[in-house]
C-alpha cells in the first residue's frame, strides 16, 4: 500500500470538529425539526423567506436521494436531473390541462375536488401523483443502473451524464414526439398551469400563503431523512458502504452486486422524483429548460459541500446552496458587480460561484461541512482503499 500520509501536504490549521456526541444527537435532531415546524410563524406567509424555506426543503429531499447513490454506494451520478424531470412530468401528466386532448372536455379527476375537478385533462390527487412519480423514477433509476453495472468510477459518471442529457433533450423536443393525440412533453413552451397540491383537510396551498407548501416539503424531507437513517444502518446500507469501499471484496462476502447497485439507483431516483413532482406543482410549471446538466451539478454540489454520505451534512449543504442560489445571489448580491463598475449580473455567473466554492471547500475542508465518520478518517489519517494502487500494480 502506498503511504499517502507521508506524501500528503501538511494541513494548515485543522478545522474544528463539529460532530455531536452520540447521546446528544437525538434530542438535538428533534429540537431542530420542531424549530423548523414553527419557523413559518415568524415570517410573512407569502414572502421571500418562506419561498426560500420551501425550496431549501425540496432540494434537501433531492440531495438526500443523490446522497444514497453517490455518498452511500459510491456511484458517481452526474445525471440526477433526469429524475427531477421525470418526477415533474409525472405531475404535469397527472395534474394539469396537458392531457386534455386525450380526455376530452370532461376531464378525468381522481380524488380531487374544487375547480380542478371540472377542467379537462387529468387531475389526480397529489398523493397518487407522488406514487406515480416514485414508480416512474424508480424504474428509470434501475434502467440507468443497468448499463453501468459493469463499469467503475469515471465511466459510471459518463453514462449517467449522458442519461441526464438524453432525458433533458427528450423533454425539450418532446412536443414533436406524438402518438395520435398524445404529445410527449410541451417542450420549451412548458406545461402550465399545474394543479396546486390538495391534501385532505388542507385547503391552503395557494401562492399567497406558502406555509402549507412549506410544511408539506418539510414532511417529505423528514420522511426522506428518516428513510436515509434507516437505510444507512440496515444490511442494505452496510452492503452499499462495502461496495463503495471495495467492490471485489464485497462480492466475495456474498453481497449481490447487481441487486445492491440497482437498489441504490432506484431509491435515490425515487426521492428525486418525489421532489420533482412537488416542485412542479409549487412552481406551477413543468418547463423543459429547467432540466439542464447544471442542475445535476447543483444537487451534487450540495452533497459534496455538506459531506459525502453524511446525512446531516447533506441537509446542511442543501440549505446553504439553496439559499445562496435563490436568495443571496439574485436578491442580495446581484448588483455588486455594477456597484464595482462591472457590466454583468451576478446571476449570470452562478455556476462559476458554485465552482469556486467547491474549490475552496476542497482546499479548506475536503471532507465536507459535516463529514461522515469514515471519510474523515481517510482524509485526516491517510487511510483509504488502496484499490487503485493495487489494481494498477496487478495490471
Amino acid at each position: 500500500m502506498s503511504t499517502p500520509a507521508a506524501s500528503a501536504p501538511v494541513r494548515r490549521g485543522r478545522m474544528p470538529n463539529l460532530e455531536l456526541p452520540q447521546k446528544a444527537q437525538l434530542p438535538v435532531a428533534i429540537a431542530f425539526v420542531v424549530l423548523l415546524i414553527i419557523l413559518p410563524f415568524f415570517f410573512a406567509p407569502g414572502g421571500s423567506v418562506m419561498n426560500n424555506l420551501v425550496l431549501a426543503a425540496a432540494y434537501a429531499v433531492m440531495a438526500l436521494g443523490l446522497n444514497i447513490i453517490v455518498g452511500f454506494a459510491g456511484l458517481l451520478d452526474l445525471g440526477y436531473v433526469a429524475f427531477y424531470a421525470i418526477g415533474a412530468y409525472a405531475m404535469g401528466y397527472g395534474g394539469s390541462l396537458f392531457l386534455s386532448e386525450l380526455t376530452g372536455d370532461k376531464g378525468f379527476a381522481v380524488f380531487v375536488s374544487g375547480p380542478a375537478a371540472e377542467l379537462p385533462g387529468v387531475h389526480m390527487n397529489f398523493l397518487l401523483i407522488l406514487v406515480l412519480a416514485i414508480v416512474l423514477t424508480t424504474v428509470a433509476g434501475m434502467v440507468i443502473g443497468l448499463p453501468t453495472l459493469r463499469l467503475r468510477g469515471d465511466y459510471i459518471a459518463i453514462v449517467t451524464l449522458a442519461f441526464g442529457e438524453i432525458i433533458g433533450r427528450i423533454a425539450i423536443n418532446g412536443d414533436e414526439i406524438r402518438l395520435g393525440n398524445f404529445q410527449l412533453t410541451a417542450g420549451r413552451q412548458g406545461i402550465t398551469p399545474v394543479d396546486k397540491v390538495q391534501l385532505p383537510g388542507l385547503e391552503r396551498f395557494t401562492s399567497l400563503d406558502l406555509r402549507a407548501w412549506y410544511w408539506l416539503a418539510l414532511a417529505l424531507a423528514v420522511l426522506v431523512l428518516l428513510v436515509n437513517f434507516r437505510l444507512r444502518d440496515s444490511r442494505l446500507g452496510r452492503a452499499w458502504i462495502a461496495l463503495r469501499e471495495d467492490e471485489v471484496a464485497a462480492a466475495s462476502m456474498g453481497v449481490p452486486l447487481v441487486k445492491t447497485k440497482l437498489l441504490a439507483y432506484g431509491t435515490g431516483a425515487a426521492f428525486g422524483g418525489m421532489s420533482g413532482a412537488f416542485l412542479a406543482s409549487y412552481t406551477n410549471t413543468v418547463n423543459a429548460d429547467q432540466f439542464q446538466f447544471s442542475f445535476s451539478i447543483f444537487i451534487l454540489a450540495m452533497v459534496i459541500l455538506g459531506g459525502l454520505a453524511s446525512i446531516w451534512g447533506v441537509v446542511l449543504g442543501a440549505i446553504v446552496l439553496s439559499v445562496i442560489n435563490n436568495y443571496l445571489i439574485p436578491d442580495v448580491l446581484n448588483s455588486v458587480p455594477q456597484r464595482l463598475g462591472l457590466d454583468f449580473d451576478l446571476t449570470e455567473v452562478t455556476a462559476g460561484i458554485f465552482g469556486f466554492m467547491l474549490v475552496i471547500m476542497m482546499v479548506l475542508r475536503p471532507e465536507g461541512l459535516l463529514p461522515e465518520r469514515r471519510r474523515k478518517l481517510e482524509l485526516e489519517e491517510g487511510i483509504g482503499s488502496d484499490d487503485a494502487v493495487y489494481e494498477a500494480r496487478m495490471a
Partner: protein
Amino acid sequence: MLELHDIRTFYGNIEALKGVSLSVDEGECVTLIGSNGAGKSTTLRSISGLTPPRFGQILFHGRDIARVPPQEIVRLGISQSPEGRRCFQRMSVQENLDMGAYLRRDKEIDADRAHVYELFPRLQERRTQKAGTMSGGEQQMLAIGRAMMARPKLLLLDEPSMGIAPILVERIYETIAEINRQGTTILLVEQNANYALGVSHRGYVLETGRVVLTDASSSLRENPEVQRAYLGT
C-alpha cells in the same frame, strides 16, 4: 467435495486457464503452487464466481456451480480470502468480520466471531481499529477471519503470505493448519511453496494455465523439478 473438470477461464480474449482439472476432498488442505501468471488466482476466482469459467464444470458436492453467481456460491459454503487481502479499509475489524457474515441471519454469528478472535488474538486486541491502520500481516489475519465468518465448508485462501513479514507468515500458517484441523476444507494458492507444502496434504503445480504436476505435498517437496523452480534450493 470440489471437482474442477477442464475449466477454461478468459479475461476478455486472453485465455488464463487452458483446461484445469483438480479435486479437493472433504477435510483436506490442498495447495496450488506456481509462478506469477500461472493461473492460480484465476482458478480461485473461477471457483468463487468472480470470474466464471467460459467452459468446463465446477462440481461442489455434485452440483455444477460454474455459472452460479458469487453470492449463491458463498451461501453454498465456499468463501474466499481474496488476493491482496482487500479488507474494507475504513471499517473497523469487527465491522469487517460482520461483513463476512453478510448472508447469515442465524444466532451463532457472535459465537463465530469469538472463535475468529480465538484463532487470531491480535484481531481481538484491535477490534475497534480501522482495518486500514493495521499492518499487512494483521490485515491478512482479518481477511482470513472475515472469510471464516461465512462459516464455509471450503475456504479459499489466495496468497496469504504476500507482502508480509516472515514472522507473521509463520503465525498465519500455524493458524491455517489449525483451521484445517478443526474441520474446514482448504484450497490454498501460494507462491511461497515452502509454507504451502508444509501445511497441505496434496498439491498441484500450475504453469501457464495448466496443471503440470500433482502429488502428495511431501513428495512434491522432494521433487527436484519443484525444488528447483519453486523452493529455491
